[in-house]
């Protein structure tokens, strides 16, 4: 069952050069029981996309087009005021980066939990606290102690887990994690990802993990979506995409990942720099400047995101087999059909 349906989402930011798209025509499904990893370099629009799921695009941004349909709620982008407030936290749980301080420093975690409950008009606050303690215990923390603590008394990994408690305590069905492992050491990373997987399975959630760390995400995600220059350029079942990347950018991204076992030199950096709002190509493919496979069509026609076999999608003019073979062919193939 599809829990969240993002359709043709375009988000623009106001710059000195006018309104420029940070996310352009993105479509994405989050299904119940599936963890989707959304990877991309910084500035690729992945965090903007995640915030748009809660209709919380920050100033000076605006949603220019598209919809975010959440099961049982409708289009989140059409909500406002109290309705929107109830959906945030109630249906959609958002977890901040571990390095961020997502708690009020002056109140204990428990009191902020009560604030959350009252804001969402929870009748049985005692049960809410009990559920929060239970969640905390399951994540390997002492629930009683943690609820009596202030934020500054908790470690980064604990804060991250508390963020997950807050996202889930109201029984949200959708869990969105923004860079959940950034700023954590390797062991805490693994622990947090483990916990995400566990709570995800136990509660049959639809989980979206935003990250630039394709290695970390490959441990737990079911699906992988790759963003570049505000576009989703490829997505599909995780293992399939990792084994057979059919978009030149995905291929380069995987190739740039160093592995713990194996030669570090085997990792190849992607030449060039990721585009930002003002430098991203207005016509043609946004990746063509850094693409070793680029053909003439890439310069003037933007490749559409086309559905292929086995639940995969890609946006590229070059034949999948050519990308898979790894050797740029003669610039002849034009069409974008996988």
């Amino acid at each position: 069952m599809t829990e969240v349906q993002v359709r043709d989402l375009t988000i623009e930011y106001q710059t000195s050069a006018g309104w420029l798209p940070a996310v352009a025509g993105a479509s994405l499904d989050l299904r119940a029981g599936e963890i989707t990893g959304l990877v991309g370099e910084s500035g690729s629009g992945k965090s903007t996309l995640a915030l748009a799921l809660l209709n919380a695009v920050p100033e000076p941004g605006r949603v220019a087009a598209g919809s975010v349909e959440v099961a049982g709620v409708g289009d989140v982008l059409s909500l406002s005021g109290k309705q929107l407030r109830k959906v945030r936290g109630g249906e959609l749980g958002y977890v901040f980066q571990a390095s961020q301080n997502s708690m009020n420093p002056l109140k204990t975690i428990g009191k902020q939990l009560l604030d959350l409950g009252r804001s969402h008009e929870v009748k049985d606050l005692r049960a809410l606290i009990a559920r929060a303690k239970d969640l905390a215990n399951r994540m390997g923390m002492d629930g009683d102690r943690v609820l009596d603590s202030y934020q500054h008394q908790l470690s980064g990994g604990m804060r991250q887990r508390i963020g997950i408690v807050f996202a889930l305590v109201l029984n949200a069905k959708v869990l969105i994690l923004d860079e959940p492992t950034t700023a954590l050491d390797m062991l805490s990373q693994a622990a947090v990802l483990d916990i995400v997987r566990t709570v995800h399975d136990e509660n049959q959630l639809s989980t979206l993990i935003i990250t630039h760390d394709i290695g970390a995400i490959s441990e737990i995600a079911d699906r992988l979506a790759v963003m570049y220059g505000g576009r989703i350029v490829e997505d599909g079942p995780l293992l399939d995409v990792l084994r057979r990347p059919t978009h030149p950018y995905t291929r380069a991204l995987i190739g740039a990942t160093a592995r713990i076992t194996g030669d570090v030199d085997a990792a190849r950096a992607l030449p060039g720099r990721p585009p930002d709002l003002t430098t991203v190509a207005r016509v043609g493919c946004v990746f063509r400047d850094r693409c070793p496979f680029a053909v003439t069509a890439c310069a003037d026609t933007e490749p559409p995101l086309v559905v292929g076999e086995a639940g995969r999608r890609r946006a590229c003019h070059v034949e999948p087999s050519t990308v898979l073979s790894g050797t740029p062919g003669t610039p002849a193939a034009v069409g974008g059909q996988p």
Partner: protein
Amino acid sequence: MTGFARRLAGKLLAGLVMVWVVVTFTFFLVHALPGKPGDVQYESYIMQGFNPEEARAKVTAVYGFTSHDPLFSQYLGYLGRLLHGDLGQSVYYSGVPVSHLIWSALPWTVLPVLTGLLVSFLIGVIAGVIAAVKRSSRWGGLLSVSGSLVAGVPSFVLALLLLLVFHTEWHLLPDAGTSDITLEPGWSPEYVGSVVQHAVLPVISYALLSYGGWLLAMKSSVITVLGDDFILASELRGLAPVTRARYIGRNAILPLFTVLALSFGIMFAGSFFIEQTFDYPGLGELLLKSIGVRDYPVMAGAFLLITVAIIAANIVADLCYTLIDPRVRR
């Protein structure tokens, strides 16, 4: 709570040491002032037409008991009496205890300063929140400008301006003193009413002087907090607007509490100009007068009080901070 008691004890001890240092410093500084008690009196006798001989004899008769001991033994004596709570006696008002002079001046400084400070804190903080939230609108900008403008006017100019408008032009409020002198001091409604009426202009002056500071400080504090991660987090968790406003308010006002306690002590010291302008017999005027006639004990006493006030305000601010900010607690 034993931790709190230990903290308090430590702070008090440090405060005492600080008071001793300042007392020592001011004692020698005050005695290092050029001139000596009686100089002013001597000059006024000369002006009145006495010849120098006569004038000197008259001055010696009045000020003759001024100590001629070495300064250091005077200092030891002063410290010893201070330990017994004895501030000594005024030289100018012969024989009147310094503590009596200070006690009678104290309320005329404390009450207006405290009232003015609290009024300006309240108004400034609220205006600061509005200026921060509406900072992109015209009204928010106007508020900020009002803050900068008022904060930039020197106190004596402000006080004179108030006098000009409310006394000279509109005849609304009295220009000097603490009450109508024909009234008997007491709790009679007429007397209290008169005191309030006389206090209005000084209080407004104190309030206006610090209003701009509060407004600008609160504005920047609110803007900082608004950009904090946990405010966005509380929005994305769907917290009620009232709850979010409370989060913002409490976090933003935090740094201002310290300043509030400190500025109480500082205003204490800075009340000269306003008390001068409104001829208000407070501590500032007492100090200024005593400096003019080299009344060492009164000067030392007034400085001591200001020092103690500032140090006490510091301690209170410190302790309050540990109560309202859990991060400072241990």
